[in-house]
């Protein structure tokens, strides 16, 4: 299993989760965990996903998700899990 963290931040609007999930499903990326809150009208979501079945290059997926974010009007980042794991776990 190769885990990545997808973070979505921005002004809340209809269909953010739907659009992000559709993109992930279309690229064989499995969602393992989702946390989501709205703080003062701002949408804040973190997903832990498994990218081991993904066919595309990781960098291409990062670029496409960023572009998708621009279309929805939010910022989407896709990062490999190790940066968080290293920093917060011994």
């Amino acid at each position, binding site marked *: 299993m190769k885990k990545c*963290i997808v*973070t979505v931040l921005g002004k809340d609007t209809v269909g953010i989760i739907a659009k992000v999930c559709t993109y992930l499903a279309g690229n064989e990326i499995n969602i393992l965990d989702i*946390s989501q809150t709205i703080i003062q009208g701002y949408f804040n979501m*973190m997903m832990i996903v498994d990218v081991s079945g993904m066919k595309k290059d*990781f960098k291409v997926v990062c670029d496409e998700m960023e572009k998708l974010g621009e279309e929805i009007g939010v910022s989407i980042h896709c990062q490999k899990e190790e940066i968080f794991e290293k*920093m*917060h776990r011994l």
Partner: protein
Amino acid sequence: MINMYEVSETNKMIEHENLDVRTITLGISLLDCIDSNLEELNRKIYEKITTVAKDLVSTGQDIEREFGIPIVNKRISITPISLVGSAACKTPEDFVTIARTLDCAAKEVGVNFIGGYSALVSKGMTKSEENLIRSIPQALAETERICSSINVGSTRTGINMDAVRLCGEVVKATAEATADNDSLGCAKLVVFCNAPDDNPFMAGAFLGVTEADSVINVGVSGPGVVKKALERVRGKGFEELCETIKKTAFKVTRVGQLVAGEASRRLGIPFGIIDLSLAPTPAIGDSVAEILEEIGLERVGAPGTTAALAMLNDQVKKGGVMASSYVGGLSGAFIPVSEDQGMIDAVNAGSLTMEKLEAMTCVCSVGLDMIAIPGKTSASTISGMIADEMAIGMVNQKTTAVRLIPVIGKDVGDTAEFGGLLGYAPIMPVNEFGCEAFISREGRIPAPIHSFKN
């Protein structure tokens, strides 16, 4: 599993607090390029660097993208050229041809600096080493990406005062050779005591002869992250203050360890060390001076500055050491003037003086760094300043360095502009009493008594 709070903490550090990996520095040994034919030597150097480092920049960019962490610089350090060129170079001009080759190789592989146009002369100088040192002004004036360093002393050998005298002249000549750019050449020239073999930070990086054929060394940074963390413990006791610095340094260093491991694996080059340094940039919120002010100083330079810096430096090391498998290089807080907005402001406000900076270098990572001084300062006065700093390093068994920029045509009240990461600096006054008779004495200062440990 990682939770949302942890993810947002990391990303906040990156996006708002200037967390980055300051440099991936690829050390390349050039010992196997040595040849008595100068042309052949240049060809071998170019070939080795452009072969070993061909994927360095693209690998760094891939890591940045995949982990979402900026890697500001990708650089190369090499075996001191005084050794590599000793068989082929008979004159300073011969050494300059190697500088041109290195500059071309750096451009070809896309690194912004290549360090190791260096000589290690802490006890004595060979003819070749003297020629290299004499070639530095021309080499730095004619190239763009070369960094040069000279080690003139160590705790075990004492201080080579003949080299100190020569260095004062070379700093002055480099300033004159690059006078059109506010004497920028001097920003790429460092004089060391106890220079480490594995330093990834420019301008003092070189790959020592104790090192392997190639090695990955990584320099981390993160003054902004420490500053923000300390904002949350205002008014609290030293225990909490120190714990906060340690925890933050640990987190910052872990990112460096991850990047170093990835770079090493992908390039197939062994991992050397992480340099645990708080390296500031001229960007707002990326300042070591601001950390000291957050600790409780009205301005850097005020009474208490040396104590606060000593504590900061020690806590950064204590937090960072456990986060990395190997720690080396300079490791500590850097206090360059031109590269730190808080330091510049303190100089302009009249709070920070040359003498206080010298005191601060006794307890921090490097030395008198990126300080612009009047262009009229004599070579012997520059040598005197170098000698003072070398003595601090020698006696305290630590690395110290001098990177002074006598800005030709400018005086106290003017400002020198270096651009980019090198920043800008107000010209600082220098004590105008001379030390000519001291500097003109020949020979070396013996090693201190506590160096005899066998």
